[in-house]
Structure formats: structure tokens, C-alpha cells
């Protein structure tokens, strides 16, 4: 006997609550100061990621377009990194949970060509932001996240102009594409299903710019050799990637709730990648047989622009979700030293201190962002006048204990990341400069 109620009770706020919690914790994708390891040039990686005041190969198209003026003839750099993360968590209930994240493989390609003695043109293609995390489907935090993946591509036609023998400027237009997907469990069960799953997939594009000034400040000639002082300033604008018309699928949903969680609907969202401002120094001391170069970069990443993440679903009954992120702008210090012998063999060591943009209480399990000091190393070998090879390595090892307060989830994290990089540089063509550049090659 079914008890019919003359008074219809409203449960329409139910889904709001559910999906708000479910979707509000659509994960925090962090980049600089997080999973982004700033891998845009293999030489740079070896120097702790500092390169804004160095400008010694085509990767300067990214790090500081003004530095292109240092490059003679036609120069290409192409590289690839293998990021191998290992993350484990401990919660009050479970002694050990391992992330099942796959390795990431960001790539980069740069070209710089000298047109006249004052003008260079260039082009880049790289993956500046990316993230990939996954857990076993039935893990404790499955209502927060099961899998997430983001991949971005940036394309940047660039031009530089030598204003003065000591100062050059460069600017590039950035076109980027991003594709994003994520899965998480939905806490509704029926007689035949214990819980459902939300699967979101979207892609979009954005436009921005990259500008830089490079200065060969001054040189000191001495008995022991020449010391060059260089300064670079770079600004890369925000990229607001609109994920419009993304696909949302809900599976294993009780029949009575399919109005709220339909098997398929669309969603709109916007992912804002932050702007980055960098000042970099380079000090290179050259003697007969060898050179030593110090590099220091200070990045400021504008994460506070990432203040809300919202998902608007096309299905009217699926409540839209909006989460406040409250991220902070952060500074990152990068430092490296390069020893080059006979302009042929190079050894690099470096370090960087990454500040996390995420405060305590906001740490989400798929990306336990940790303020930390990381170490880097690299080597180069010049095969001949045309071709040289770079290798790099990064080691990150940090722990953090924190909560995601909004989700009532707390864990200890251990995270080790090893990154292996390899790149090749090719140059040919005549030097069109009036003076022969000896310092940066």
C-alpha cells in the first residue's frame, strides 16, 4: 500500500546540496607552484628553471622573447620531458593510498631566425600547463576526485627588435588550446547500484601574449676573463580557456534522480591560467677554456585571478556549481649554475623554491601542492657546430599534512617526482650581426 501524501514535500534543494558538494570539489588544477614543473627548455630545467636573463638558445622565445636578439642565424630547439610522479596518502581510516597517476610527457619546440641585424622572428609550440592524476575508483575520496587530466598547447609567433646594442625587446601572440577531463563518484545509490559517477570532458582555446625585454647590461674585462651581466624581464598574460559545450555524463544514477543527473548533458566552464611576471639575472664569467654562468629568476604567478571555478550545466535541473578557491599569488625563486668546458661540455646544477598558492585547509587530494625546495641538474654536449644535445633532471620530494575543509577530508601526503628531460638544438645560417656575439651561443 503506497501512502499518498496530500501535501507534496519539496525535496528540490536536495540535488543542490549533493551536486554542490559533489561538483564543488571539482579539483584544483595547479600549475606553477604545483604540478607544473616549468619544463619549457632543457637547459633551463638544469638551471632550476631560470632562463629569463640567459637567452642562450631558442627556448628564449618562451622565457624572454627579447633574448632572441642574442641568437644568430637560424636556431631550433626541441625537447621532451618525462614526468614520473609518485604520490601516497594516509587518512585516519586508511594507512596507505597510492595515486595511480600516469606519467606526463610535455614537449616543446622553438625556432628563432635572424632576419636583419636588428630583427629576429620566432615561433614556439609547447605545453605550458598540464596535470594528470588518478586514484583507484573505489578509494576513500572518490566523491572528491577519481581521475583528472588537463593538457594544453601553446603556439606563439614572435618577433624581437634590437633597440640598442645592449637592449632588445620581444613580443609574441599566444594562442592556446586546452582539453580537460575528470571523473568522480556521485553519492546516490539504489537497490541495484551503490553509487553513480560523473564524467566531464571539455576543451577550449584562449589568446594571450608574451613580452620581454633583454639587456646585456655591461661587461667587465679583467685579467681572469670577461664577466657579462645580463638582465631580463618577462610577462606572460593570463589565458582564460573557455570550456564551452563540454560533455557531462552521469552513469549508474538511480532512475528517480536521472532528471537531476541525466545520462548526458552539456556544461560551460572557464579555466583561467594565471599570468606570470619574471625578472631574471644572468652573470657569465668566461675564461679561455671554460665559463661559469649564474642564473637567478624570480617568478610572480598571479593565481589570485583563479578565484572561482564554476560549472554551468545545460540541463536546467542539474544545479550549477561554483566554488571559491581563494588562491594566493606566489613567488618562486630559481637559481642555477652552468659550467661549460671548451664550449663543448656543460654541467648544470640548480634549485628552485616553489611556494604553494594553496593555503592549509584547501589542499585537494589529486594535487597535494607543497611549498618546497627542489633540485635540478643537467648536462649538454655539443656534437658539432650545428648540433648540441641537452639532458636534464629534476628531483622533488616533499610531504604535507592538510585538510580540504569544505570536503571534510584530511590526509598526510608524500610526494616524489622525478623528471627526465632531453633536448636537441640545431643551428645554421650566417650571423647577420654587425658585431660577432661571443658571449651567448
Amino acid at each position, binding site marked *: 500500500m503506497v501512502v499518498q501524501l496530500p501535501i507534496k514535500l519539496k525535496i528540490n534543494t536536495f540535488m543542490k546540496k549533493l551536486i554542490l558538494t559533489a561538483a564543488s570539489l571539482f579539483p584544483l588544477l595547479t600549475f606553477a607552484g604545483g604540478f607544473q614543473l616549468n619544463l619549457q627548455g632543457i637547459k633551463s630545467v638544469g638551471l632550476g628553471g631560470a632562463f629569463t636573463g640567459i637567452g642562450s638558445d631558442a627556448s628564449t622565445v618562451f622565457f624572454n622573447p627579447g633574448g632572441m636578439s642574442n641568437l644568430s642565424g637560424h636556431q631550433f630547439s626541441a625537447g621532451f620531458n618525462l614526468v614520473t610522479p609518485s604520490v601516497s596518502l594516509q587518512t*585516519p581510516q586508511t594507512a596507505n593510498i597510492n595515486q595511480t597517476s600516469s606519467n606526463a610527457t610535455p614537449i616543446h619546440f622553438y625556432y628563432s631566425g635572424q632576419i636583419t641585424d636588428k630583427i629576429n622572428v620566432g615561433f614556439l609550440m609547447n605545453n605550458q600547463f598540464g596535470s594528470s592524476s588518478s586514484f583507484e575508483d573505489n578509494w576513500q575520496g572518490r566523491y572528491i576526485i577519481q581521475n583528472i587530466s588537463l593538457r594544453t598547447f601553446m603556439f606563439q609567433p614572435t618577433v624581437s627588435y634590437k633597440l640598442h646594442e645592449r637592449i632588445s625587446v620581444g613580443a609574441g601572440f599566444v594562442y592556446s588550446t586546452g582539453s580537460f577531463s575528470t571523473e568522480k563518484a556521485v553519492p546516490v545509490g539504489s537497490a541495484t547500484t551503490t553509487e553513480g559517477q560523473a564524467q566531464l570532458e571539455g576543451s577550449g582555446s584562449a589568446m594571450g601574449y608574451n613580452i620581454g625585454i633583454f639587456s646585456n647590461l655591461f661587461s667587465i674585462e679583467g685579467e681572469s676573463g670577461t664577466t657579462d651581466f645580463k638582465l631580463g624581464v618577462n610577462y606572460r598574460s593570463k589565458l582564460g580557456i573557455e570550456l564551452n559545450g563540454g560533455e557531462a555524463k552521469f552513469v549508474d544514477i*538511480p532512475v528517480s534522480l536521472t532528471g537531476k543527473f541525466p545520462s548526458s548533458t552539456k556544461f560551460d566552464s572557464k579555466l583561467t591560467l594565471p599570468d606570470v611576471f619574471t625578472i631574471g639575472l644572468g652573470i657569465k664569467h668566461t675564461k679561455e677554456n671554460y665559463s661559469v654562468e649564474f642564473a637567478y629568476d624570480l617568478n610572480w604567478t598571479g593565481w589570485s585571478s583563479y578565484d572561482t571555478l564554476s560549472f554551468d550545466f545545460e540541463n536546467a535541473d542539474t544545479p550549477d556549481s561554483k566554488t571559491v578557491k581563494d588562491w594566493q599569488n606566489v613567488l618562486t625563486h630559481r637559481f642555477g649554475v652552468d659550467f661549460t668546458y671548451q664550449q663543448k661540455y656543460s654541467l648544470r646544477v640548480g634549485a628552485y623554491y616553489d611556494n604553494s598558492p594553496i593555503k592549509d585547509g584547501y589542499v585537494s587530494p589529486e594535487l597535494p601542492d607543497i611549498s618546497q625546495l627542489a633540485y635540478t641538474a643537467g648536462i649538454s654536449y655539443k656534437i658539432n657546430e650545428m648540433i648540441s644535445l641537452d639532458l636534464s633532471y629534476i628531483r622533488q620530494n616533499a610531504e604535507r599534512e592538510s585538510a580540504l575543509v569544505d570536503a571534510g577530508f584530511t590526509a598526510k601526503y608524500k610526494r616524489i617526482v622525478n623528471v627526465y628531460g632531453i633536448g636537441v638544438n640545431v643551428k645554421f645560417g650566417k650571423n647577420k650581426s654587425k658585431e660577432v656575439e661571443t658571449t651567448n651561443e
Partner: protein
Amino acid sequence: MIIRELHLTELITIKNKQMKTTKYISIALIGLTFVACTKTEFDDFESLNSGTANFSNYIAVGNSLTQGFQDNGLHNEFNQQNNSYPAILAKQMNTNFLQPTVLGADGSGYLKLTSLAPDIDNVPAASGWNNWDNNKKYNNLGISGIRLTDCVPTNGSIFSPTINQVITSQNPYGKFLDFGSLFSPVTYLEHVKNSNATFYTCWLGNNDVLGWATSGGDDGEINISGIPIPIKTSELTPVAVFRAKYDSIMGAFEKMGAKGVCATIPDVTSIPFFNTVTLAAIGAEVWITEGPYSNNPGNVRKATPDDLILLSTKDKFSTTTGHGFVQANPLTHEEVLDKDEVAVVRNHTVLLNNEIKASANAHGAAIADMHEYMFSLKSGMTFDGVAFDAKFIEGGAFSLDGVHPNTRGYALVANKFIEVINQAYGSNLRPVMVHDYRGIIFP
């Protein structure tokens, strides 16, 4: 001489080669060490330690909340009874725990959600669900519907043992215990004394206020033939009587050397049963009758948001007779807990809780403040990404009767007990993952 020089040069070359090889091997080894150093695994938790407590014979004393009652029944088709909070606790304690499991998954019958309107269906009882063997030694002594006042005879009342015997033996949920006969009664207290507990949880007292509240502020007087005085089946148990009986239970445990936890009575007006049929949900004027404990007994007036209409009253409204909607046909006093009655029961709950805490302290027991926990739940709590509160169905923690938690809610309760036990006895019981237990089952 030439031979010697050659020898030397050769030696140097060999030495260089050796050095190069050693160098390469060392580089490879360092490389391997780096590669190998990706171990991030945490060590296992240390093994179970019961601290100063002894979990070898855990006895749970209480009512429906303790028995695992939900959706207006004791049922097990999705392991609801198997996951009563004492059973969850016992699993974490790694101790044997025998419950009078219903014989037939549908148990005593239960409520089932058939649509989101909400339409709620009644699943009938499984035949013979409570034909338990009452010679077995059960660990879970929870009996749905039992009040503390029925468990121990009232000092100075000659009819009390008989009344208690009638009430407890007539309770279908208590058939796993032998309560003797009318003139040779065995009390619940006797069963506690015979339990040989080393550890206990005691959550008695809820029905000493709940019954009064769910009957709209009524004492529930009935007459049983053979007993000259009327039995008040849902009276608010008087404070002194409550304390004396609670002390008896505590005394019994203390005498057998058992350690344990006493839980306070949650505020019954916070449960969905009283907070779902709101004036906003009804969307019309409602007329009510004030009850015998209200300021103006018998007074008929318009309902205000402070008057709590019972969930069971939702199907008593009628547009044909106007019952509940017109002054001439107001809701009866049993159909609503008016604001005066709300104050009475809230206040009485606080008084009884004071006695529980005092008795626990006097007998060296720890206290789980479920009264406070209910308020936290009402204002909303989130666990592992899912939000809970005290709302009907959507809140996630209460079952379809609006009174008892669902299995997930009982897991929250178990975690609260674990927190208290660890703190009081220095044990290291692990909390459970709330979402491993079923919440509302949607159609």
C-alpha cells in the same frame, strides 16, 4: 727501455680505462639510486591497542538506535541490522559480537522510498522474523522502543515490576531476552548483570523523551486488565526516577569491572520527524489544538513556524473535512508538538542528560555527547566530499522514518563513539569510512 716505456703507457691507458669504467658505473649507480628512490608508501598503522579498556566482551545497552532500527523497522536486506553502530564498533575492536539478527531479510517490515514526491511504501514483515533463541548470549542488548524506566523497577512502586514485565515481554523487538512471567519477572537490569561485560556502551534514555514527543506531547495512558492503575506508556520519565534507574545500570557494570561509554540523549526536536512538515511545505494556514502540557491546554489556534507538525501527521490533513486547515477542525494535540511542548521536551532532555553525565562521572564512565553531536549534524557536516545534515531524505544521515539514522548515519555515530573511547581509554581504534555504508536507497 722502450719496452718499459710502452709498458708504462699501456698501464696508464688501462688505468684510465678502469677509471672511466668506474666513473660510468658510479654514475649508473647514482642514477639507479635516484630512480629507485620513488618510494612514497606510508607504513601500516600500528596494531590494535585497547589502552586501559578490555574489548573482549563488549555489551551494548540501549534502544532502537542501538539495535540498528531504521526506516521504521528492524531489517537486513542491505545489511542494515548487521551494521548497527555497536556491530561497527565491535568490528573495529576486533571482538566477537552476537546480535539477534532478524530471521528473514525484511525483518519487522520497513519503509521504502518509491518516488521522490516522496512516496513511501510499507514493506511487510518477514514471517517469524523474531523467533530468536533466547538461550544465546547476545552482545547487543538494544531493544527498539524500550525506555530506561522499563528496564529497572521503580523504588517504592509495587506494581512497577509487573508493569515493566508486561511492557518488555510484549515488545516484539525484545524477544531475544527472556523476561520471565507476570509474577516472576526478569528485568532488563538482570540481563545486564548477567552479561559479564568487560566493556559497554549505554545509550538508554532516548525513548524516555522521544515517545512523549512523537505522540505530540502525550503521556500515552492505557489500561491493562489485571492492573488497577493506568500505564503511562510515553510519559516523560521523571528526573529522580531516571537517575535512580540509570545508577542501577551503571552500578551493575561497575560491579562486574566493565569500562564503557554513556551517550547523552540528542535533542529530539532536531530530527527530520519534526522538521519536515513545515508551514512552508504545506503552503496554507494550519489550525492546531494545544496539549495538556502546553500553556493553554485545549486552546485552538493558528500554527506558527515554532509549532512542529509531526511527520506522521502529513497524511492526516484533509481538504474534504478540512482537518488541520480550518478552525472548526484543527489538528488534535497528539498530531502536533506545539511550541510550549517543544520547550518542555527540550528542557526535560537537558535535565535527563545532566543526570546521565553525573551518573557516568560517578561510575567512572566516559561520555559521548550525542546531544551536542546532533546539533553539529543539524548545522551540516561534510565527510570525504559528501555533505550531511538533519533534513529528511536529502540530509543523507536519517532514514525514512525521520527518527533513526540510516546505515551511513550509524557509521557517523560509531565514529563519534570511537573518538570518545580512544580519548578516554588511550586505545587506537580506527574510524570507519562512512561511505562504505549505504545511505538512502533511491528508487
